[in-house]
C-alpha cells in the first residue's frame, strides 16, 4: 500500500513566471501521475494561489513575449480533478484579505489549530 503524503507549500509565487507554474505543485501532480497518494496543504503566502481573483499577465523582455504564462488556478483545478486533496489554512487566507467566496471550489479550509490533527491522517509530511 502506498504511503499517504501531505505536502506543505508555504511560499507563493516562487519562480512561477520563469517556470510557468509552481514547481512544488507541479512535482506533487507528477508524483500523483506516478502512483503516489499525495495531498497538499497551502499555508502562508501560498494560500493566495487559490484566490480566483488572481491574474498573471504575460511577461515581456525586449522583443520577447511570454505566450504561455502561469495559470495557477487552472493547475489547482486540474489537481482536484486528478483526485489530489488540497487544504488551506483559512486564517492565513483571511489575514491576506482572501475571503472564502474567492477560494477555488474543492479546496478545503483548515484552522491553524486543526493542522496537527491533519498531520495524523498521513504517513509522511513533507514541508517544501
Amino acid at each position, binding site marked *: 500500500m502506498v504511503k499517504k503524503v501531505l505536502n506543505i507549500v508555504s511560499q507563493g*509565487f*516562487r*519562480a*512561477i*513566471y*520563469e*517556470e*510557468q*507554474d509552481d*514547481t512544488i505543485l*507541479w512535482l506533487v*501532480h*507528477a508524483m500523483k*501521475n506516478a502512483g503516489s497518494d499525495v495531498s497538499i496543504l497551502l499555508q502562508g503566502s501560498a494560500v493566495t494561489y487559490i484566490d480566483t481573483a488572481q491574474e498573471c499577465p504575460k*511577461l515581456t*523582455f*525586449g*522583443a*520577447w513575449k*511570454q*505566450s*504561455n504564462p502561469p495559470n495557477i488556478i487552472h*493547475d489547482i483545478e*486540474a489537481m482536484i480533478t486528478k483526485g489530489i486533496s488540497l487544504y488551506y489554512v483559512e486564517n492565513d487566507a483571511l489575514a491576506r484579505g482572501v475571503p472564502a467566496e474567492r477560494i477555488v471550489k474543492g479546496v478545503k479550509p483548515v484552522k491553524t489549530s486543526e493542522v496537527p490533527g491533519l498531520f495524523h491522517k498521513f504517513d509522511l509530511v513533507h514541508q517544501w
Partner: protein
Amino acid sequence: MPKKTLTFALMDPPFENERTTTALRLIEAACRKGHNVNVFAYEGAVFMPFAHQKQHANSVKGTDLENENHPLTRIWVAELQQLAADKGGRLDWVNCGLCVDERGANDAITGIRRGSPADLVQFIEGSDNSLVIATR
C-alpha cells in the same frame, strides 16, 4: 531625462524565486529608457546567461515544446542586451569568474564578460547608483 549609469548586483540563480524576474524587469525598465546598465552576477546568478539552457515540454500540463514555450533567462538577458543597444545605452554584464568555475557555468551567451570583485568596484565607482538584489 539625462542618461544615467546604474549597477545591479544579483545573486540568485534562475528558476528558483521571483527575485530573478523582478531584477530583470527593473533592468529592462532602465534599458528601455536608454540608461547604461551594469550587472555584476554573483553566486547562482551566473547561470542566468548560461548558454546551454534548453526549453522542454511539460508532461503534467500536456504541452509540447512549442506550446509550453518555456522561458529561458539566457534569452531574456540577450533581449536586454539588444534592447539596451536599440535605445542607445548598453548592458555590461559581468559574471563572477570564481562563481562560474565552481558551478561549471563557463559557457555564457555572447557579450557576457568574465570578471572579479574588482569589476564590481569599477561598476560602483562609475555609476550614479547601485542596487543589490541579494539571496535570502
